[in-house]
């Protein structure tokens, strides 16, 4: 169903449109929100929640047939942006329009239950994402082959190494062919061989009928693969445009920012 629907998109058609997107959320200050802490401070006016401004007025268009790279320091809001695009977090301001089926396989979602085997995790993740049993069956062999896990696919995921986790996550993300594919940091773990293999896969997926959003700290990959790069910092979009231009600016910022950050911390 997903692969069939992808053929109707022409390159240049809008895939994702992010308009004035803002996201604020209240989160607990306490590490674990408990009743006891609530009761102890009852009537004292102590706040248990604080407001976090994760995204602020972000504008972004992703057309079909292109690859958008997203870069930014830790905590810049990259993953949050991806979660809004895939409908996991509702925006606080603005609007996100999605013209196609998004794969919500941010690599971390696979392996949500470490007591279950890799196979069960993949199946359950797929079912939760709204795929049918048949679709999952059809893709499963390919996923297992690409991840190169061998018999370990039947073992509980608590026995997996972090590399195996990442490999399975990436395989799921790229094998299930959605219209809009989001790959979040999946390339960063895994050995050199798998890294190359996954890079090749990304290049292969860069077809006209699909839009790709690639979140990565691997700036070399971003330069090599993307048509456009967006740079986020503390929830705001600093710059977007030509990959080399933006990555150069970002790299420069990282070097300068290091000393600036040290000054800020004091």
């Amino acid at each position, binding site marked *: 169903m997903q692969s069939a629907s992808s053929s109707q998109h022409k390159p240049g058609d*809008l895939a994702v449109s992010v308009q004035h997107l803002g996201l604020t959320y209240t989160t607990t200050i306490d590490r674990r929100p408990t009743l006891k802490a609530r009761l102890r401070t009852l009537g004292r006016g102590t706040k248990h929640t604080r407001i976090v401004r994760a995204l602020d007025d972000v504008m972004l268009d992703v057309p079909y047939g292109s690859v958008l790279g997203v870069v930014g320091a830790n905590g810049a809001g990259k993953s949050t942006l991806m979660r809004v695009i895939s409908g*996991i977090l509702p925006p606080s301001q603005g609007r996100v329009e999605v013209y196609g089926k998004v794969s919500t396989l941010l690599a971390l979602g696979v392996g949500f*239950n470490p*007591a279950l085997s890799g196979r069960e995790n993949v199946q359950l993740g797929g079912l939760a994402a709204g795929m*049918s049993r048949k679709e999952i069956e059809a893709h499963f062999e390919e996923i297992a082959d690409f991840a190169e896990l061998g018999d370990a696919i039947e073992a509980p995921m608590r026995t997996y190494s972090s590399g195996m986790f990442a490999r399975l996550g990436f395989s799921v993300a790229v094998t299930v062919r959605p219209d809009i594919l989001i790959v979040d940091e999946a390339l960063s773990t895994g050995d050199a061989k798998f890294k190359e293999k996954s890079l090749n896969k990304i290049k292969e997926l860069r077809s006209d009928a699909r839009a790709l959003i690639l979140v990565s700290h691997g700036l070399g990959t971003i330069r090599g693969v993307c048509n456009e790069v967006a740079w986020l910092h503390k929830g705001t979009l600093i710059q977007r445009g030509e990959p080399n231009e933006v990555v150069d600016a970002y790299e420069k910022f990282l070097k300068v920012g290091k000393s600036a950050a040290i000054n800020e911390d004091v």
Partner: protein
Amino acid sequence: MEKLGVAPVEVYEPFRAGLPPLGRYWRSLWARRSFISEYSRSELHSRHFDTVFGQVWLIINPLLLSGVYFLLIVIIGGHSDKVRYAHLTACLFLFYFVANTLTGGSRSVVKGQKLILNTAFPRIMLPISAALVALIRFLPTVVVFFVIRTIIGLPLGWAMLWAIPVVLITAMMALGLSILISCLNVYFRDVANFLPYFSRTWLYLSPILYEVSALKPEIRKFEVFNPLFPILDSWSRTLVHARPPQMASLLQGLAWALGFLIIGIYYFLSRERDFAVRV
């Protein structure tokens, strides 16, 4: 970028407080119904994965449980007969169905953290799965009870069919409680810690270790506050004594069940969009 004539497949906008569009929510939930059964199946499978007896624990557990409590009432009560043992077993099994739903439900959302953070789906599937797990664990205990009942030699009767609506009402109540407590536990993690003591107290306040007829009238005045009281009374009447239940008890149980279900669903649905930043 050509936009004319193409409608977005999904639009995400800020939501107002209150319920999400229910029709859409229901369709999305229905499309994922196989997740619920598959998830429950894997949960059950992994629960006894490492044990020697494996799935046989589904039978051993209730047997040991009824044995322990029978020992207790024999020592404290000084006497016992087979009807009392049957009553104890039947009611204990039904009670543990509800208690297991509470335990499973309370952890369901928090346990699904990774899934919630990375996939868009109706979150209510998690407590529903937890309730289903408890239901599947309950079914073998009914078989165990019927074996015990046959060995003891209690009379059979058509009135025992009333047990079916009683189970349905209990399942409805369990589902409501599971949904409610899963949401509560997101905001107050203490709930899961507090729960075993709550369950234990509820067990002693319900007509399980004793029969309703053994209670003093002054204490029976408070029975209306115990949602399980009318249910367990009907359950014991139908299954142990093979008599029809009192209609008033059934309706009272149904009212509690519907109440929990409606409050639970409302509370959960109006809160669930907040879960991704709270778990």
